[in-house]
């Protein structure tokens, strides 16, 4: 009761502290990012050079970042998508083949990739809702399936199509804004759109509702299954966009590149403060989470730490991020996790 009263009194008067309290997950993630960044800058000033920041850190965040944004929607429903990595490879291969076969231009190629990604996502959604498979199992199956299909369709060879399509290489490497790679611009725009979808649309609202309490949402008259399919499809659209970006960066579709990306994407989502139990999460947090991972890898590489040890550090950071988040919640008396 007394807690209620204090909230009433402090409302309005103390907006900043209220904001910090509400957004503490993201504030903490952002603070960690700044601290890690500062640490590497002090150790090696070259780390903070724009060449390293844009070409090294930001550029390497783009693909994992896009996948992570897509997975954020799914994780907020309380689900999981393990298929995003290999689905990306499959979309890349299908898009490459189709663009070559039908001589598509760059814009139709991009749209086509996103569409194929959306369809793959919708298949996940249907497996989960119609066949009532647990998300973990359904997407584990599609993960393996996509991995195989990407190899079959490509005949296990990279598809070198990017140079044949005018402007395809510019998708990632061009600079609409001087000195700012387009891929990074795409990541930020996609993040803003994702954030708007999550917070301002009916889809986003149902996304949170399903993750908070699926049964209650269903009993409130929401057609939960339909919305779940839509959410998995939306995740797929982001996977499609990631596929477009990675083919542009590499100049080709690599059928065997993607396995393992799903776990990095999920790690970014979790470091960004989204709850694996569903109902809570932000796109901004996910982008920060993805940036933390890139900054770490890039910085450790500049410090010439061996690759094996880089993995260990990333593992430790994931543990620490989740542990700190749990600790904070427990102190706040939040038992819902």
């Amino acid at each position, binding site marked *: 009761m007394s807690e209620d009263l204090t909230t009433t009194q402090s409302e309005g008067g103390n907006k900043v502290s209220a904001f910090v309290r509400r957004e503490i997950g993201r504030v903490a993630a952002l603070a960690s990012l700044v601290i890690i960044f500062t640490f590497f800058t002090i150790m090696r000033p070259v780390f903070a050079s724009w060449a390293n920041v844009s070409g090294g850190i930001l550029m390497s965040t783009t693909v994992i970042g896009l996948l992570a944004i897509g997975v954020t929607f799914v994780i907020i429903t309380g689900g999981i998508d393990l298929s995003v990595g290999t689905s990306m490879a499959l979309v890349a291969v299908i898009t490459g083949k189709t663009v070559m076969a039908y001589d598509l231009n760059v814009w139709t190629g991009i749209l086509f990739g996103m569409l194929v990604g959306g369809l793959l996502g919708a298949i996940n959604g249907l497996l989960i809702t119609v066949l009532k498979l647990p998300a973990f199992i359904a997407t584990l199956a599609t993960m393996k399936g996509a991995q195989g299909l990407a190899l079959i369709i490509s005949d296990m060879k990279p598809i070198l199509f990017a140079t044949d399509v005018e402007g395809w290489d510019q998708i990632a490497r061009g600079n609409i804004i001087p000195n700012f790679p387009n891929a990074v611009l795409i990541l930020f725009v996609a993040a803003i759109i994702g954030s708007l979808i999550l917070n301002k*649309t009916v889809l986003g609202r149902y996304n949170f509702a399903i993750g908070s309490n699926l*049964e209650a949402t269903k009993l409130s008259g929401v057609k939960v299954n339909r919305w779940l399919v839509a959410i998995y499809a939306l995740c797929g659209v982001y996977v499609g966009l990631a596929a477009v970006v990675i083919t542009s960066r590499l100049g080709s579709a690599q059928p065997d590149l993607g396995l393992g990306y799903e776990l990095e994407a999920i790690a970014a989502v979790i470091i960004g403060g989204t709850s694996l139990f569903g109902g809570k999460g932000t796109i901004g947090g996910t982008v920060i989470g993805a940036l933390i991972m890139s900054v770490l890898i890039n910085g450790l590489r500049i410090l010439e730490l061996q690759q094996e040890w880089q993995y260990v550090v990333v593992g430790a950071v994931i543990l620490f991020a989740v542990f700190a988040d749990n600790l904070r919640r427990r102190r706040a008396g939040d038992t819902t996790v």
Partner: protein
Amino acid sequence: MATAQLLSLTGVSKVFPGVKALDNVQFDLNEGEVHAIVGENGAGKSTLMKILSGIYKKDAGDVKYRGQSVEIPNPFEAQRLGISIIHQELNLMPHLTVAQNIYIGREDRRPGRVFLDNPKLNEEAAKLLAELELNLDPKAIVGELTIAKQQMVEIAKAVSYRGTVIIMDEPTSSLTPAETDALFKIIRTLKAAGKGVVYISHRLEELAKITDRITVIRDGQYVKTLKTTETSIPEVISLMVGRKVDQDQRPTNRNISSEIVMKVDGISDRHLLRDVSFELRKGEILGFAGLMGAGRTELARAIIGADPKTAGTITLHGKEVKIKQPSDAVAAGIGYLSEDRKRFGLLLIQNLTFNVILSSIPRFSKFGWLRIKPAAGVTRDVISQLRVRTPSENQFVKNLSGGNQQKVVIGKWLTRNCDILIFDEPTRGIDVGAKDEIYKLLTKLAEEGKSIIMISSELPEILRMSDRVAVMCNGRLTGIIDNKDANQEVIIEYATKFSDELPAVH
């Protein structure tokens, strides 16, 4: 007869936050005796049994086992003493065999033994089953047995501890008459072997057949212990119900129109419901009374399409509607307020606005975009109209009290403009002061023309609120009574009509 006393409880009390669940209760049990404990829902029967089996700790009082004062801090100690309990919900592992279930946790684990000795386990189980004259295969998979046979496995398990006190909590709740007779035969075998059986049942007519004594408790207090041969069902009922005070509270005479808003005809489901039919009038509160497990919640869930029905139709305003999933019910204007608000009603980790608009999101959106401002406005209206005590509409629902959470769920359905509201235990977990407020709110809603189905296990609540009382027993509707003809005795009588001869339903 010179039979030894097995158990003797005196002055046992137990307090839960805000509720005195047991207050100075006494009870005793002799060798070779079946002693029943009866009382209304919430009278404290289960609490007492949980104290005996070491699940709860008593706050005061004395428990004597064979004349010695004992403490039962945990279930292991209860088992060591020889007290076994068979819970209402069976606690078996469906994928294991009968023998494996009986001896679970007591497998041979001597050093040097690597694999389990299933043949030996089966042999021992077979001996035990023969002793109890149970016709069960030790190697049968439990999940493939009927409920009655599973119950027998539970009994065999309880006996295998070589205990002397066996507590049976509603053992016949899911048995057919023939199976019940088989169970009684086993109980008589146990009696003959000198064991004491504590028997809890709502089925009063069974008591005469199997029990030696009956102890009545009410509102957590000991009422009386009767010899079965010297009492009658009406006497037991009147002792169970006891108080007359609450019966004074009746609904004020409302003008209920004769307009029928909903007609439910012949609803059955796969498990429990059998041919349930009733009509709901505009502006009426139709109470649904019955014992736990009578099928009231199941009926509500079948009506709104949350669980499948195998037969039956629902007609709204004279037009039949097909309700296959909850969204159909909501579209037809039926809102369901579950007894388990936290699980089935609320998004606890979200704020009031989110919860209030959850059923009406299309109304608060344009081309897929959410319009937050009107939603917050509507929520503020709900807060002031229903007097929800909250600092603002941005408060998380988990921070509200039970009564205020209930108001948020009500607000959700009012926002959706539902004209049929099904309240399942509307005041469960709500403290006394807030209860009154919920009652006033329900009355007001009915006066405004909403039609309300109110499921409640509290008879005073049923009598106070309902214009008519529908009573269910064992998945059937056994009677619909006008409030003026209703009292606790009549309702209990209908609620315990387990036989096939049903009174006329009007």
